[in-house]
Structure formats: C-alpha cells, structure tokens
C-alpha cells in the first residue's frame, strides 16, 4: 500500500529535480549565446531575465484578481452556500490553513481551481456543475485538493517555472533575430576561438531550448497535480472520496466554456482538448493515472 506521505515526498523531490533542470537549461542557453555571438551579447541575458520577471511577477501578485477575471468566478458569502462553507471549514481545520475566499463559476462543466499568491490571499472556486453532481465525500476530496495547492504554494511554483520558461523563450527569440540581422559581426569579432561544432551545437540549443522549457514547465505542473492529490489525502485521510470525484470528472465529457491556455493549469481537471496534443505538453497527469495512484493509497 502506498502511503500519502511517501507520495508527497516523491513528488516534492521530483519538483526540485525539475526546477534544477530548468535552471540548468537557462544556464545552457546563456552559455550557447556567448559561444555563438561572443562576449558582447552578455548584456542580453539580464535583459531577458528582467523582462520575464517583470511580466510574470506582475501576474503573480494579482493572481487572485486576474484568474477570477479570466474564468468569470464570483466570490460568494457563507449565507449563499452554507453546506459548501461547512466543508471548506472542515478542510481548513484539517490543513491548519486560514479560511480562503470561496467563489463560484456559473458553468455546467464540473471543475474547480485554487489561486492566490499565498494562503492569506487564497481563492478556491467551483463550477456550479461540480457542486451539483458531487456528494459530500467527493466534494470534500475536491476541496482538499484545491487547499493542497494553496498549502504547497503552487501559485509560486508555477510563477517560478513560468519566469524561467519565459526568460528562455525571450532570450532565444532575441538571439535568433540577431542571427538574421547581425550574423556577419560574429565573424569579425570571435572567429579565432570558435570551432564549427561548438557553433552548430549552440545554434541547436538556442532553437530547441524554448521547446525544452515548455516541456519542463508542463512536467512541473503535472508533478504539482500529483502532489496535490497526495496532500489532499493527507487532509481528508480518505482517498476514496477524491478517487470517486476524479472518476466522476473522467465520466463527464463537458468542458468549461471560458477556457484559455493561460489558466488551463489551475483547474482540477484540464479544460483543454487533450486528444490532439502530446502527453508531454499536458499540464495534468492523465485522470486514469491519478485515479490509479489514489487506488494504491486505498490499498485496493
């Protein structure tokens, strides 16, 4: 039988591993840029990182407001849905987290998400669809999964991943443009110490890096989903509830109307069409795999 604590540890370890990979990739891109263009391009690296920081961390600080706007979620009060609030309160007791804001998205497709830069600014939102179809235990599992994202600081983790991926994308984009316009300069500057193999490799790195960064970003997101499932079981001590909830989500074929790539990763079930893209770019592990992991925790 798999223990939720060992599942949490494994997922945390893998996140660290992936983030280190992300760091190594940025270093590789910077290195390739220096090899290909020579020392004069060094100034571009901090520029790209600064730009990525600026664009991502703005959205990090206003994550709650931004996501609410993009998904059309509306904050509700305790009197609007006392039963849902009672369940959320139970889960805050189990997790030791402060009471988050609760929001509802008017949408028939069952789904839920959590956002906010830290526990004090957390918002957890549910579609009207999920509130309709789930029973008490299932909904408790879903709430625990969302609060697990808050407890694990997943808004921060995805902001870090997005910053690095963004910086890499900007960097290689700038450098590839420079190649078209100023390729000749390289020859006069640093022809003496560059061999053709190193140049070819650097070029390959610059072209492939953004793709690799996207793959790493998606892998981190999948890890955090699996971690949130394990942490949810830590809170409820009832893997069956969340497992049944995921099975209900798998059985349902409707998807959220106001979906967009930008916020796809925050939902409990990915709202994007999953058949057309490769598994490697998915922000969520396949539901079947998550259900199997929970079954292992149930010991069946």
């Amino acid at each position: 039988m798999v223990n939720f604590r060992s599942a949490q540890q494994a997922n945390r370890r893998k996140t660290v591993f992936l983030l280190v990979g992300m760091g190594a990739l940025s270093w590789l891109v910077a290195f390739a840029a220096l090899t290909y263009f020579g020392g004069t391009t060094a100034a571009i690296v901090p520029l790209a990182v600064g730009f990525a920081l600026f664009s991502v961390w703005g959205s990090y600080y206003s994550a709650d407001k931004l996501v609410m706007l993009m998904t059309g979620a509306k904050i509700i009060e305790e009197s609007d849905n006392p039963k849902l609030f009672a369940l959320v309160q139970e889960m805050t007791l189990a997790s030791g987290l402060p009471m988050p804001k609760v929001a509802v998205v008017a949408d028939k497709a069952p789904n839920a998400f959590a956002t906010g830069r830290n526990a004090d600014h957390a918002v957890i939102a549910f579609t009207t669809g999920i509130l309709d179809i789930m029973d008490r235990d299932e909904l408790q599992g879903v709430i625990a999964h969302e609060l697990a994202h808050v407890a694990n600081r997943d808004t921060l983790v995805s902001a870090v991943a997005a910053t690095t991926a963004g910086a890499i994308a900007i960097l290689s984009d700038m450098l590839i443009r420079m190649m078209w316009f100023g390729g000749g300069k390289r020859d006069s500057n640093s022809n003496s110490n560059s061999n053709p193999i190193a140049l070819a490799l650097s070029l390959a790195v610059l072209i492939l890096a953004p793709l690799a960064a996207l793959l790493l970003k998606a892998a981190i997101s999948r890890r955090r989903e699996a971690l949130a499932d394990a942490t949810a079981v830590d809170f409820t001590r009832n893997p069956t509830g969340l497992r049944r909830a995921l099975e209900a989500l798998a059985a349902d074929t409707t998807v959220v109307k106001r979906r967009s790539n930008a916020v796809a990763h925050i939902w409990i079930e990915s709202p994007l069409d999953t058949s057309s893209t490769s598994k490697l770019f998915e922000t969520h592990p396949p539901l079947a795999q998550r259900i199997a992991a929970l079954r292992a925790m149930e010991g069946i």
Partner: protein
Amino acid sequence: MTKIIVVLAFFAVLVVYAFSLYNKLVGLKVSVDEAFAQIEVQLKRRSDLIPNLVETVKGYAAHESATFEKVVQARAAATSASSVGSVASADGMLTQALRGLLAVAENYPDLKASANFLSLQEELATTENRVGFARQYYNDNVRALNSAIVTIPTKFFAGMAKVSAREFYEVDDPQDRKAPKVSF
C-alpha cells in the same frame, strides 16, 4: 588574514544554522498549542449545541431521563477538563453519550421527523467532523514536534528551546477499539 575571515564566516554560518534549528523547534511547539486551541474551540461549539438538542429530544421522549443525565454529566466533565489527556477522555465520553441520545431518538418517529431535530442533528454531524479534523491536525503537529525532539540535529536544541514531547490526543472510544473483522 583570509584564513581568519574563512574561519569567522564558517562560525557565522554555524550560528545562523543553530538559530534556525532553535526557531524550528519553537515554531513546532507553537503550532501544537494552536492546534490544541482549535480542538477546544470545536469542542466548545459542540458543547453549545447540547442543551438545545437535549431539550428537543425531551419534548418527545421525556421519560428517557437516564440518557439525558448521562449527556449532561459528560458535558459538564468536558467543560471542566483542561489537560490533553482529560480533554480527550471527556471528549470520548461525551461522544458516546451523544451516540446514546441519538439512538434513543431513533425510537421516536415524530422526533426524527421534526425539523428542529433534523437541523440539530446535521449541525452535530458537521461539528463532529470538525472536531475530528482538528484532532487529526493536532496529532500531526505533535508527531512533527515529537520526532524533531528525538532526531538529530534538532534533538540537541530541545533543552535550550524548552520544548518537550507532547501527548497525542487519543479519544477513548470503545467502538474504535474493536478489532476489524477479517474474513478470508
């Protein structure tokens, strides 16, 4: 000169590390205290529901006085308890007494159908859940604190930080003790 700087830097890092271990232990202790306070808040909430519940049941089943007596006594004991062990055992007794009360209610269809009773029962059920989750959170924190006290390196700072192993919150409930049925 550089040697002295290296040595000083090494000691500075060591001191900062020692501080962080000390703070970790104190932090764990504070979390345990907070978690216990949360259990008490939830027990109080449950305790406040009881007079209302007893009155409602009395209205339909006035002669079941033995059951009421048990609940009232258990509630009084629970209100006066303060240490972890006594709160936990009083909590267990009250849980059992309440179970008895609800079992009595089963025999009175009119009572079971009354709106007042149903809402109280629902309230009691969610409160029991909250008490349960507060207990679980407390025990998780005690587990973290107790293991920090016996594992290296935090072990060496336990005396200095004046933290000691804490008691788990174990409810004495005969129903939980029953060995699970095993069938082959």
